[in-house]
């Protein structure tokens, strides 16, 4: 080697400084995200946790989870003590002491009591929409991956699915309103005035009059929204199952459908469940699709009350946590008395999504641990 002294660096090491600076900037960005996340979760935890937790045994204040939403009344009594009571207790108090004992009264809608209604509504909506989406999505994915021959039509279908994934959720909300709420077919003996089209079947009518604002309309809308993700991910998981399993099964004389049922679908299940975990959180969290199709700000009874059977429940409107949070944030003035409901709801909502995900991930891991290749 000639001039080996060139290997030794002379003077200040500018390049090393530059490398260090680049690393610091990029690292700062990454840690910045963590700080923002911590700030958000910290604030919610700080203000929300006290609503649910208490310092003495059993450490959880279940009344916020089990009571219905009520209007909160703030007033002074004759001695000047300030009271803050939900509507039902307020009426009892007023009855006992007479309404002329109430001074300086203000009331905040939806801020009293608990959030049992929204919790139940969100749980039902999420469950129903994920069941619907898995049924239709996995069926479509099986067709695309196992049956369809690659051609122009199938490419068009795939393009449509990908585009559907990019449609804003408010558009799904309007779509659900136009189709499920106003135009979906129902069997009825007396078609409504606003039916689009009623088909006489002799013993009854098939009337295109929509499902109204109801649990089933909202779930169907949410299912449409998460369908593209479920189809795409399910198709990928099905394709990841080795061809050897299919050939071995077919070579043993199994039919195509038997092979799919016994040798493809079970082994694709972990992947399908992973995609549905992501969709689950999204279905639980979206506000726009349920605004016009199912959600109400206030409701006195649970979806199964005042209806007949599971079919009746599907036709009832429900409260939902994301919509409840929107209502609390946008429709009522913020004050010290409303913070409990606002931050409490958000805190419970996050806990609920965390719980959903934890259950799904456990389920997926249990399925996955049985399969290794």
């Amino acid at each position, binding site marked *: 080697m000639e001039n080996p002294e060139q290997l030794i660096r002379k003077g200040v090491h500018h390049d090393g400084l530059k490398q260090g600076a680049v690393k610091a900037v990029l690292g700062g960005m990454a840690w910045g995200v963590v700080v923002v996340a911590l700030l958000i979760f910290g604030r919610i935890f700080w203000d929300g946790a006290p609503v649910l937790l208490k310092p003495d045994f059993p450490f959880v204040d279940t009344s916020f989870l089990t009571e219905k939403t009520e209007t909160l009344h703030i007033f002074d009594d004759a001695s000047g003590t300030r009271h803050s009571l939900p509507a039902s207790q307020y009426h009892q108090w007023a009855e006992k002491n007479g309404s002329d004992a109430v001074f300086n009264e203000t009331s905040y809608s939806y801020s009293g009591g608990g959030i049992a209604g929204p919790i139940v509504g969100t749980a039902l909506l999420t469950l129903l929409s994920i069941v619907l989406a898995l049924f239709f999505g996995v069926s479509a994915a099986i067709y695309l991956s196992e049956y369809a021959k690659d051609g122009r039509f199938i490419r068009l279908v795939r393009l449509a699915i990908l585009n559907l994934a990019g449609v804003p959720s408010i558009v799904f909300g309007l779509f659900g309103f136009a189709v499920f709420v106003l135009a979906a077919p129902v069997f009825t003996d007396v078609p409504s005035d606003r039916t689009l089209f009623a088909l006489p079947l002799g013993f009854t009518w098939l009337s295109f009059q929509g499902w109204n604002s109801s649990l089933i309309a909202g779930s169907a809308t949410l299912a449409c929204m998460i369908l593209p993700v479920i189809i795409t991910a399910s198709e990928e998981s099905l394709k990841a199952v080795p061809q050897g399993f299919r050939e*071995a099964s077919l*070579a043993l*004389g199994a039919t195509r459908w*038997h092979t799919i049922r016994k040798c493809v679908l079970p082994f694709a299940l972990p992947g399908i469940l992973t995609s549905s975990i992501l969709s689950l959180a999204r279905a639980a969290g979206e506000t726009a699709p349920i605004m016009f199709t199912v959600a109400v700000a206030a409701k006195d009874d649970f979806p199964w009350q005042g209806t007949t059977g599971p079919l009746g429940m599907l036709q009832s409107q429900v409260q939902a946590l994301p919509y409840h949070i929107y209502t609390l944030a946008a429709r009522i003035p913020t004050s010290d008395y409303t913070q409990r409901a606002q931050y409490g709801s958000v805190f419970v909502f996050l806990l609920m999504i965390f719980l959903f995900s934890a259950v799904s991930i456990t389920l997926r891991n249990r399925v996955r641990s049985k399969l*290794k290749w």
Partner: protein
Amino acid sequence: MVSDSPAPAVPEIAIDQLCFSYGAKQVLHEVTLDIPSREITAFIGPSGCGKSTLLRCFNRINDRIPGAKVTGGAIRIAGIDIARPDLDLQVLRRRVGMVFQKWNPFPKSIFDNVAYGLRVHGEKNTKVIGERVEYCLRRVALWDDVKDRLKASAFGLSGGQQQRLCIARTIATKPDIILMDEPCSALDPLSTLKIEELLLELKNDYTIVIVTHNLAQANRCADKTAFFYLGKLIEHGPTVKIFSNPDVQQTESYVSGAFG
């Protein structure tokens, strides 16, 4: 094709002027060959010569490959044209079993792997299934190794054991013909030896067609050998003749290792 009848006069598999294409690419050119019953027939030839394709025609597993089709000629198994529209494909595949190059047990237990074919064909009696599974595992000399862990995953077995499990899975449905697509190409010499011993034992009951790249293996096991080159059947006959005194110069060059 009843197992304990004497070998019939008709060849087990009769290939008549078979032409086969993947899309526009013709891979088999007018192959005519008779495969005798209860013997081992080896297909040899360099990669891409169409020997695996021909093997995969016998149970019509090529049907699932887009663009693959028979463009001329016919295959008759025990006298029946397997391209007939009224052929029961499920029964054909039960009677013509297949073992693949890469061992492919299902991610299920050892027992469920062997029982799969039986359950496919509607067997529900657990006693019958249990007996058949034991018989098949004994037949492939795997029973003593696995009898205490039948419920364990098949993936815990070694490569050679997994391939023998796949053979057990294949014979569970009582086939008459077993097709083997390079069953030992990914196995070590000792496992290969065990499989070869198994083949010699199995040929008493089954007609075996084996595709192999291993010339020594064909020489050791096969009764008949067919040499393919560029989609054409060049020469076929008794193994001894093909390896010691072939009629065609190309066969001579291939079996002596001059090309391939």
